[in-house]
C-alpha cells in the first residue's frame, strides 16, 4: 500500500505532462474534422437510430416502450466510452514508445490520459442525452438522478482499470488489440444494450438454465450492472407489457454502491498489475 501511494505521488509530480497528453488527445480527436465534437458523437447516434429502426420493425417489444431509442442511447453512451477508451489506450503506449525509450516518466500517465480524455468526451455525450430527454421527449427528471454521478465515477474506475491492463498487455503481445476488437463486437449483442436485462432473466430458456444460475451470472457482468443502473436512475420504467406482464425491477442503490466498490478494487489491482510490468516495456539489451 505504501508503494502504491509512492507511485501515485510520482504521477502527481508529472501532472503538467499528464494534462498536456489529455489536451493532445482531445485536440487530435476534434481537429480531424471541422465539426469537432458533433462529428465525434455522430457514430453512436446513428447506431442508435439504426437499432431503433430494426427493433421497432422486426420485434414486438421495442414498440411497447414510450421511447425505445432513449433506452438504447442510455446504454450506447457508456458502451461507446468503454470501447473507445480501451481501444485507444491499447495503442497509447506504443504510440509513445519512441519517447519512453529515452525519457523518464511514470508510464501509467499515458493510458491514464487516454482514459481521462475519453471520459471528458463521455461527459459531453451525456449532455446530448439530457437535451434529448428534456427538450425532445419532455421526460421528467427523476429523483434517482442523484445516483447518476456515482455510476459515472464507477465507470471511470472500471474503464481505467481495463485501459491499464490492455495497454500493458499490448506492449508485450501484438494480438491483444485484435482480441479486444472481437470481444467488443460480441459485447454489443451480449450486453443489455438493445434490450433489457430483465428480458434475459425472465426468458424461458435462461430462467431454468443451470438452475437459474445462468441468469444470475449474466447479471454479475459489471457493464450490465452499469447500463442497467444508468437507465433505471434516469428513465421511467417501461410498461410491464415489455416484459410479458412482469414489472421491471426498481432502481437499486445497493447495486450501484456494489459496482462502485468492485470497480475500485479492479482499478487498484490493475494498477498493481501495470506497475509490476511497466519497467519491462522498453528494456532490451
Amino acid at each position, binding site marked *: 500500500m505504501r508503494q502504491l501511494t509512492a507511485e501515485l505521488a510520482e504521477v502527481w509530480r508529472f501532472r503538467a505532462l499528464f494534462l498536456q*497528453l489529455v489536451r493532445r488527445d482531445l485536440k487530435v480527436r476534434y481537429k480531424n474534422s471541422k465539426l469537432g465534437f458533433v462529428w465525434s458523437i455522430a457514430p453512436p447516434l446513428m447506431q442508435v437510430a439504426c437499432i431503433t429502426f430494426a427493433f421497432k420493425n422486426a420485434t414486438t417489444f421495442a414498440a411497447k416502450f414510450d421511447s425505445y431509442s432513449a433506452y438504447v442511447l442510455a446504454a450506447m453512451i457508456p458502451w461507446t466510452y468503454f470501447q473507445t477508451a480501451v481501444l485507444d489506450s491499447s495503442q497509447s503506449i506504443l504510440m509513445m514508445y*519512441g*519517447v*519512453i525509450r*529515452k525519457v523518464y516518466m511514470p508510464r501509467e500517465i499515458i493510458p491514464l490520459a487516454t482514459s481521462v480524455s475519453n471520459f471528458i468526451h463521455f461527459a459531453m455525450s451525456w449532455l446530448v442525452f439530457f437535451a434529448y430527454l428534456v427538450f425532445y421527449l419532455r421526460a421528467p427528471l427523476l429523483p434517482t438522478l442523484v445516483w447518476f454521478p456515482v455510476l459515472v465515477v464507477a465507470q471511470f474506475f472500471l474503464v481505467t482499470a481495463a485501459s491499464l491492463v490492455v495497454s500493458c*498487455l499490448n506492449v508485450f503481445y*501484438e494480438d491483444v488489440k485484435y482480441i479486444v476488437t472481437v470481444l467488443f463486437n460480441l459485447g454489443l449483442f451480449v450486453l443489455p444494450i438493445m434490450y433489457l436485462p430483465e428480458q434475459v432473466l425472465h426468458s424461458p430458456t435462461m430462467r431454468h438454465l443451470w438452475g437459474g444460475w445462468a441468469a444470475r451470472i449474466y447479471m454479475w457482468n459489471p457493464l450490465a450492472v452499469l447500463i442497467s443502473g444508468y437507465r433505471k436512475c434516469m428513465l421511467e420504467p417501461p410498461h410491464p407489457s415489455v416484459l410479458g406482464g412482469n414489472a421491471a425491477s426498481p432502481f437499486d442503490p445497493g447495486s450501484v454502491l456494489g459496482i462502485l466498490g468492485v470497480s475500485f478494487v479492479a482499478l487498484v489491482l490493475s494498477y498493481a498489475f501495470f506497475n509490476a510490468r511497466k519497467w519491462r516495456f*522498453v528494456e532490451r*539489451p
Partner: protein
Amino acid sequence: MNGGVPEASIRLASLRKTFTLQHRHAGSLKAAMLSIFRPPRLERREVLRGIDLEILPGETVAIVGRNGSGKSTLLSLVARVYKPTSGEVTVNGTVAPLLELGAGFHPDLTGVENVELYGAILGLSRRQIQAQFDSIVRFAFDRPDLAEKIDTPLRNYSDGMKMRLGFSIAVHTYPAILLVDEVLAVGDEAFQHKCLEKIEEFQERGKTILFVSHDMMMVRRVAHRVVWLQDGLVLRDGPTVQVVDAYMAEPGPASAADANVG
C-alpha cells in the same frame, strides 16, 4: 559540496543490469496461452557487470566501446528509463536526453501545440515553455517564411524542419545534465555544426554532458574525458587523447569498423 570536494553530478556505484530475454513485441497472447504448460526458456544477458563511475559537474564525458558493450544501456540507466538490477544511480540535477529528434511529435497538431507537448515531455512547465517560445522558434527557423508555418499542422513540415524544431526545444530546456546518444550523427553538415555550437555553449555554462558516440572526431573535439566500456565493464577511463588513442589502436572490429560508422 562537502569538505571542498565537489559533489558528483552523476554517480554510479557497482551498477549492474541484466536483461531477461523473453516474449517481445513479436509475441502473441495466443502463443502465450498455448505455452502455459511449456514455459519458454528464459535467456539472461548481463549487459553491465558492475560499473563504478563518478562524473563531476561541468565535465563532458564520452562513452566509447564496440557495439553491445553496454554504452546505451548505461545512458538509459542514467536517464531512469531502465531500472538497475543492482547497484545505484545517483543524479544531481535535472536530466534531459536529446531525443531521436521528433519522437513525440504528433502530425495532426500545429507547431505551437507540438512545442507545448514536447516541452512537457522534457519536463518543462507550461509557463517555462511560453517564456522560451519565441526563442525556440527563432532558433529552429531563422527565415520568417518558415516561422509562419508554426501555426500549421506538423504534417506540412519537411523532415529537416521537424528535426530543427525538435533540437531547438531540447536545447532550450537547459538541463543540468544533457544526455546525447548518437543523435548528432543525423542531419546535414550545417545542422551538425549548429549542434556542436550548442554543445559548446552548454560546456561554457558549466553543464554536465554524457554522450555516446562512435565518431572519434566528435569525441576528440568535445569530450574532456573518455570512458571505454568493454563487455559491461569499464576498461579504461581517462583524458580524451589517451583513451581514444588506445581505443583506435585496438585491433579487430572494435575500432576500425566502429570508427567509420560515425
